[in-house]
């Protein structure tokens, strides 16, 4: 599936940037291949416009903010958050003519993140009650582009069979490669998956978790936020809750912008944030190294790749996405190379 070619994907909210990183300057972003610019108005509300002045196509993101409006760097045409041109400095009174505007997109702020939808969203941004619950602290982990599509990142995150291999140096047990089948349940955001997974407990994690044993158990409750985000809630045997929010936005057919933060039921005195980030970074680097080498054009149909029972959550994502496309009259769009790959795979399996 080439995400920029599936129009229905424009009808979701995507997490673009952590709120505190959108300051007084315009911020350029590419969402599903569309160049946009984000900025805050005088009241601090975020806005997203097409990053292209309607006069001579200059990048508005190279301009600056004046009284909550964005000023084009080329001739100073100035736009409000709703895309309306409010000033043309070369006109005697500065007043623009009627109907001069650039395209504006829906933009909002939730869970400490600025979100954008290119077209009318099919559903709301899912709730995250722990974000506002004082029993949880927030720990920012990272904000960076990955050279991998969101679907690969999502499948990976719900795939309990990769721990023993990809994460053998951190928490995976390579001698125990057969995961217990997870339980999937419907959820308004996508689906929720429950699983209990035994893991290694290295020194850094002993301190982070307050668990001294060499192995421990993770009780997973992972929620897929269709299409490309997840909430991963891990409860440890001692009652500690470690929630990893991994929110991704599709830049283009290959790349994703990833925001990751934690919600933890303990305190900084129990486990310094720095050490939590250090361990999770080790784990995400392990994933990233593998995912960035996979084919970005993930097939939604069963054909095209081989499968095993533990792939079930990922296959469910593919099924649900295929159904979404079908419901909106779209066929899956794939790159030219995909046909060649399919042919090769068919021959090698024959």
């Amino acid at each position, binding site marked *: 599936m080439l995400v920029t070619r599936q129009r229905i994907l424009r009808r979701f909210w995507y997490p673009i940037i952590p709120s505190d990183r959108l300051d007084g300057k315009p911020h350029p972003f590419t969402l599903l291949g569309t160049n946009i610019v984000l900025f805050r108005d005088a009241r601090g509300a975020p806005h997203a416009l097409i990053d292209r002045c309607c006069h*001579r196509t200059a*990048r508005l993101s190279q301009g600056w903010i004046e009284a909550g409006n964005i000023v084009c760097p080329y001739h100073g045409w100035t736009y409000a958050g709703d895309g309306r041109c409010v000033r043309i400095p070369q006109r005697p009174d500065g007043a623009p003519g009627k109907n001069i505007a650039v395209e504006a997109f829906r933009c909002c702020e939730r869970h400490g993140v600025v979100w954008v939808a290119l077209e009318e969203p099919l559903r709301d941004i899912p709730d995250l009650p722990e974000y506002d619950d004082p029993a949880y602290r927030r720990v920012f982990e990272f904000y960076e582009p990955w050279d991998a599509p969101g679907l690969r990142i999502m499948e990976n995150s719900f795939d309990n069979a990769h721990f023993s291999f990809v994460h053998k140096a951190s928490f995976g047990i390579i001698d125990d490669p057969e995961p217990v089948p997870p339980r999937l349940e419907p959820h308004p955001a996508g689906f929720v998956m429950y699983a209990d997974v035994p893991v290694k407990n290295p020194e850094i994690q002993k301190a982070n978790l307050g668990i001294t044993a060499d192995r421990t158990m993770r009780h997973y409750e992972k929620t897929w936020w269709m299409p490309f985000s997840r909430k991963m809630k891990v409860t440890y045997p001692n009652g500690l809750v470690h929630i990893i929010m991994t929110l991704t936005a599709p830049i283009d057919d290959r790349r994703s912008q990833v925001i990751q933060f934690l919600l933890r039921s303990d305190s900084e005195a129990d486990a310094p944030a720095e050490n939590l980030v250090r361990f999770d970074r080790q784990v995400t680097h392990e994933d990233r190294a593998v995912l960035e080498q996979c084919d970005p054009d993930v097939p939604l149909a069963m054909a095209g790749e081989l499968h095993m029972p533990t792939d079930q959550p990922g296959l469910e994502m593919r099924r649900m996405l295929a159904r979404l496309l079908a419901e909106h009259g779209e066929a899956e769009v794939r790159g030219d190379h995909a046909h060649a790959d399919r042919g090769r795979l068919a021959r090698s399996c024959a």
Partner: protein
Amino acid sequence: MLATHQPVLRRFWYPVMPVDRIEAGPQPFTLLGEKIVLWRNADGAVVALADRCPHRSAALSKGWVDGNALVCPYHGWSYDASGTCVRVPQRPDSNGLRGRVVPSFACTERYGHVWVALDEPLAAIPDWPEEGASGYRRIDQFYEPWRCAGLRLMENSFDNAHIHFVHRNTFGDINDPSPPQPTIEPLPYGFVARSDVPVYNSDLQKKNLRDDSAFTVRHITAHWYMPFLRRLHIRYPSGLDHIIITAATPIDDERSQIVQFCFRSDSEADAPASDIIAFDRRVTEEDRAVLEGTDFDVPLDMHSGVERHMPSDQPGLVMRRLLLELLAAHGESEQTGHYASRAAAE
């Protein structure tokens, strides 16, 4: 307009390279998507051939010059200035091949640069009297590729309204954004625009112009030579001439090779060339940052709805109209991706 899709644009002279670069050996260049090789033969002529050996398609620019011939690096087949193969080393008894087997292009040397026209030129290379005239010096300034269409740079250079914003840190006064309107006089294959532009006089310019005023006036006589060449003659109140020649030679649809040099009526003792280049460099970088963010597929039809306009855009809109007329006169219509992409969206 997608430049490589308009054949009539092949019928203009473009400066492609400073001559000193070809003294070291054959050099490759891409002009309107056409790969060419530039070299100087033993007779001293500059030559432009297609950069492709007809034998196994090797790049001739990777080869070397032997007398009046260019030698292919792959098997040594050799070509003269007309593109005729004069030697096939594997057939020592022959004198090469019959016919011109490598396309050759009009090529000449002027103003310290090699100029090429891919098809028969419609207009001559302009005569600039300052070249070699006493009282004037020529300073070579820039030679670099930009990721933008040539037309964007041409419009920018005749657009008095961008100065206040793009050049607010060098010579534009952002507090006075109303642009002076130039007068435009048509010429064959181009026009000349005249205007007086008040500008801020920075510290570096105070030295370069030998003028301590906080503000000065540029008396501008600017020539546009179709399609992507301009001469910007700035005369300062002191009588000093600063004449900038800028070409945006089209590499392909998205990229232009910027060739810039200037003529000055003062001497090295008055203002060192390095300081003059330094100021023009800052100004040029300001333009480049903005222009490389623009869409290379500039719409020629001003009513296409792709772009909005204002009165100060007039010089650029005249360029668009004259280019449309040029296309029509040669049986072409504007080739663009805008209508296709809009149709796809609808």
